[in-house]
């Protein structure tokens, strides 16, 4: 069977509908919500704050701690709450995707905590989480060299597609899912995972597609961040 048309009628290089909002959690230092299609991620940032236990402190730079978790109601089949093998791994890769842009050396001996909750999942949750976390970090006033945007690309059947949904991920002929995170300015890859089979050419083609998608996401992120201070232009 050939994959000639996408289930939801999108083009092969078309993203699902994206929306983002900043400042959704009042008690956090920074927070954001990022929605792509039916996937919704919320992120909260606390810190820089004191890090305990003390032996974890780094006298040269701050420690970035990410925590990714899925709400038990986020998927069709109830997910057992609490950390799992999968969420631990995603927390770690998220941390590494963000650590390269955050100016951690400005806050020695402290911790910056990022909490990501997936409240609704339809594939691409780690990418949505990274997008939300990057916005929340900026909203928390933490100095960053750049913004990060992430999108999943992949191969469904014999087609290279962007932003796979759950149905495409479970395509019976086999699907390859490649989450990619890119910095906004230099288009440096900060996350690249691959689950499935692709040839070298196909991979390069997919990453090219991801670059285009990330640009679109980045524009949404900027707009959401500026939205809360819109009135500033009319004021002084």
């Amino acid at each position, binding site marked *: 069977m050939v994959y000639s048309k996408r289930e939801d009628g999108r083009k092969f290089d078309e993203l699902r509908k994206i929306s983002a909002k900043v400042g959704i959690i009042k008690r956090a230092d920074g927070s954001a919500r990022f929605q792509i299609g039916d996937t919704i991620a919320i992120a909260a940032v606390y810190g820089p704050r004191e890090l305990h236990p003390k032996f974890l402190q780094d006298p040269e730079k701050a420690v970035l701690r990410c925590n990714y978790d899925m709400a038990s109601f986020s998927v069709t089949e109830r997910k057992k709450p609490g950390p799992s093998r999968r969420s631990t791994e995603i927390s770690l890769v998220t941390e590494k995707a963000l650590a390269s842009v955050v100016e951690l050396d400005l806050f020695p001996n402290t911790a910056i905590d990022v909490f990501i909750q997936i409240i609704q999942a339809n594939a691409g949750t780690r990418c949505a989480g990274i997008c939300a976390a990057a916005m929340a970090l900026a909203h928390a006033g933490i100095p960053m060299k750049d913004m990060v945007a992430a999108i999943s690309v992949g191969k469904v059947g014999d087609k290279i597609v962007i932003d796979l949904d759950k149905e495409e991920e479970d395509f019976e002929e086999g699907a390859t899912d490649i989450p990619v995170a890119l910095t906004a300015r230099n288009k440096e890859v900060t996350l690249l995972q691959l689950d499935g089979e692709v040839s070298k050419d196909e991979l390069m083609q997919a990453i090219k597609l991801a670059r285009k998608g990330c640009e679109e996401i980045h524009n949404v992120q900027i707009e959401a961040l*500026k939205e809360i201070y819109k009135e500033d232009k*009319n004021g002084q």
Partner: protein
Amino acid sequence: MSKLIVEERNVVVPGEKLATGMEYLPGNGSFREGEDIYSSQLGLVNVSGRFVKVIPLTGKYNPREGDIIIGKITDVSFGMWLVDVGCAYFACLNVREVPEFIDKGADLSNYYDFNETVIAQVIKVVRSKDINLTLKGQGLRKIKGGKIIEVTPSKVPRIIGKQGSMISMVKEYTKCNIVVGQNGKIWIKGENVEDEVRATEIILKIENESHTHGLTDTIKKALEEGTKNGL
């Protein structure tokens, strides 16, 4: 050729290009990469001379020498108190920096105890980000009574106003004693609770509308109305 890409008082996000060319220099909240200057924070652009700065709109308190702050004593140890001032690092208040004479070996908690709040001044911020405080100076003391509210530290200049115009107006109308710490903590003490509640409401109103035009007039109107209705 050097060129400014953004305008003064524009809102910028991290990684946004502010200027090109070596004529401009990066200030606080911005950095240079190659020929260009980029923002590293979410904030407002401020150009002063050759420097391009970004004034942050959010974020934790960034201590600077000379700031008057309000903090809570969280620890009493040998020869010093540790004070929580709302940033990532504890501030240190040495026994030599308090106005009282303290005998050798005296119990320090008799002078300033846990959970007591002080108005202090930052005398030094060392490289490892430790903060040194002093209580020697005009108006610096332990706080008794009243209430403390918290606002975003970056909004403090608006609450104080030009040469303290805003805060003295609030003081005058609400008959409250108000001290604004640079770290976003504000101490309010009035004759009765109603006055304090009113001052709190007004200050939170200033915080919420800090970016609007003609804020002083709006606040003055609100204060006058409150006086007519309530008192």
